[in-house]
């Protein structure tokens, strides 16, 4: 069965891009969230195999969302989507429970490698 994915990013552009990459690799996108709050709600509802999480989002940032999801499910597999120059934030996200990261702009091969590491 295909792995299910929840994509969290406030930019449609980024959601589309990540969605394209993962769909082509055989993943099933089961949900999308535009804010941290939505991300947490959707996670509890959908329990996806994988979450891709933007760091900066409105109302609740990605790092806080990671914290809440991780508190709800310590086995959550979360992949952070970071921009260049956000190393401190990515470190914080990893400490909060995220498993790995990819850096924007996304290269499909890198995204898929990171996904394999997170799921593996």
């Amino acid at each position, binding site marked *: 069965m295909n792995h299910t994915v929840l994509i969290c990013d406030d930019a449609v*552009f980024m959601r589309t*891009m990540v969605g394209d990459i993962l769909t082509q690799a055989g993943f099933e996108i089961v949900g999308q969230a535009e804010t941290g709050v939505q991300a947490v709600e959707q996670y509890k509802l959908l329990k996806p195999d994988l979450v891709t999480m933007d760091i*900066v989002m409105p109302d609740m940032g990605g790092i806080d969302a990671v914290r809440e999801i991780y508190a709800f499910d310590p086995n959550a597999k979360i992949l952070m989507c970071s921009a260049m120059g956000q*190393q401190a*934030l*990515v470190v914080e996200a990893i400490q909060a429970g995220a498993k*790995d990261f990819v*850096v924007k702009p996304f290269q499909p091969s890198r995204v898929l490698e990171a996904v394999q*590491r997170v799921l593996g």
Partner: protein
Amino acid sequence: MNTLEYADLFLTESREHVVAVNRALLELERDTTGPNSSGAVAEIFRAVHTIKGMGATMGFAIVAELAHELENVLDRVRRDDLALDVDVMDVLFRAADILELAVEAAVAGRDGELHSADLVAQLRALGTITSNGDWTVDAPPGPGMLVRIRLQPDTPLRGVRAFIIVQSLGKLGEVLVTEPYIEDLQSEGFASDFALRLATTADPSAVEDVVRRAGDVADVEVNGDIAKESPAEKPAAKQAANPVARISGPFGAEPAEIDGARRARHVRIDVRRLDALMNLAGELVIARGRLTQLSADLGNAALEETVTQASALITELRDEITASRMVPVSHVFDRFPRIVRDAARAVGKPIDFVVEGKDIELDRSMLDELGDSIVHLLRNAIDHGIEDSEQRAAAGKPETGRLVLSAVRDRSAIVIKVSDDGKGIDRARVLARAKRDGLIDAARTDLTEDELLRLIARPGFSTAEAVTSMSGRGVGVDAVYTRVRSLGGAMDIRSVQGRGTTMILRLPLTLAVVRAVLARVADETYAIPLAHVSESIELSADDVRTVNGREVLLARDEVLPLLRLRQIVGLPEYVAPSAIELEQVVMIDLGDRRAALVVDELVAQDEIVVKQYDGPREGLDCFAGATLLGDGAPSLIVDVSSLAA
């Protein structure tokens, strides 16, 4: 993947990165081994790496290949494996240029047309790795299993990757110490490899496996020297308490203080969206004017209070939107050092280029519009203003020419100056030429700065050979003059023969909403942008003189040309209703020049929203646009820069 829709974003970002590369290359060229050089190399590396990633995503093979080869060269430089001599610097500069071309070509759908094979070969030769893969960091002292790790050369966020590796090793035991310290690892303070000591009972092969699975690992070595030192040594709890191991402490338990988390966060916004917001804010400002007036007429206290409150909020909203459109001039100015360097090299003149006031902020659209004009002025200064070394030496000047670009905030205007210490404009030639063309009275023996500017800014005049070969300083000045005026600005010139020339641009901070003085003549109200107004006084007939058939005003120590708005808009002369009702004079700043504008009365000072005309108006180019006043009546905005012409 359909990447066409990302092309714009790719282009914008890549351009920014190329600018960053050029800036850092210039910094490197000044000092290839100094304390800042490694930072500059790192900056170039990052920018090139990003372009590579984006190019690859977009499927632009040439861009990705170029960036990749360039990255390999930079990686060698970064590891002190390749010295930055003149030849290498030249290749790097060329690579930056070709990379920029490749980006533009790729977006235009001509990715395959660029011939970059020789450059790629050059880069490849420079980038060939000669190092033998030795570990560069010292083994941290102390107990525990020694683990050495080298990351892939193109690892993104290497600091974070290192952190993840260290954290994942935490599952097998306790990481006692790292080399460099964990804080430095996180902030990418290491070349390509790092080392650590792990207190664990796990098998070395299990350790290696965990490290490799953490990602982006090129090379791992476990237990490299522990075997030599003390093969039987097994990490134990008491050894973990060894003071050496405590220097950087164990980690994973408490998160390090992360100050980066509170750094400013940015989003990218389409300029058109900002334009739309600005327009709406403008409409709101107009509506506010009408609302304020209506509520004042009604005299309802509660209504007035609410209107005042709403009005303050609108002002705040407008200010925020205006501020969001402001960018530091460095946004555009940062391109110039490279342009100046190349232009100066092309004509073989050593030139010291200084940029002042890079942090001054200006409306994004305005800044974009200005970029080309400033390049024009810089090129003129280099090509024609500054003399070659021999001429300079003969004139007793330092051999290196000096070119200064400065931005200064002056009230609600910004003043941009391009100054050179060159030979100045040959006034005699300009005068002779102007007389020949019948542009100026044949009896004149000198030109004012005003006349000089207006002459060289005449289309066609300046490009005429007789002038350009002598002073040259006219090429494109007409274009610059027109552009600056269309932006609601004014231009001025100061030129001293043998000493140099300064071009002065004075511009409003933003295009859409400006503060203005509202002035009345007869029944009509005109708006005069405050960016050009220095003060106002009452007109006393005693201070008016006539010189050469033109009226002038004696104001303190100055003699200013006197202009009458009534005359300009074709109204009959002012007739004072009583002896005490004097006309008002608005003092106008134009670049460095001043003039006095006479109006009947000053009505108010207010924010106005500049609306462009729908089409040209016959004969009246003294207006820069129109606006709606608080009472809904239209008002014309005086184009002050046209007044003195």
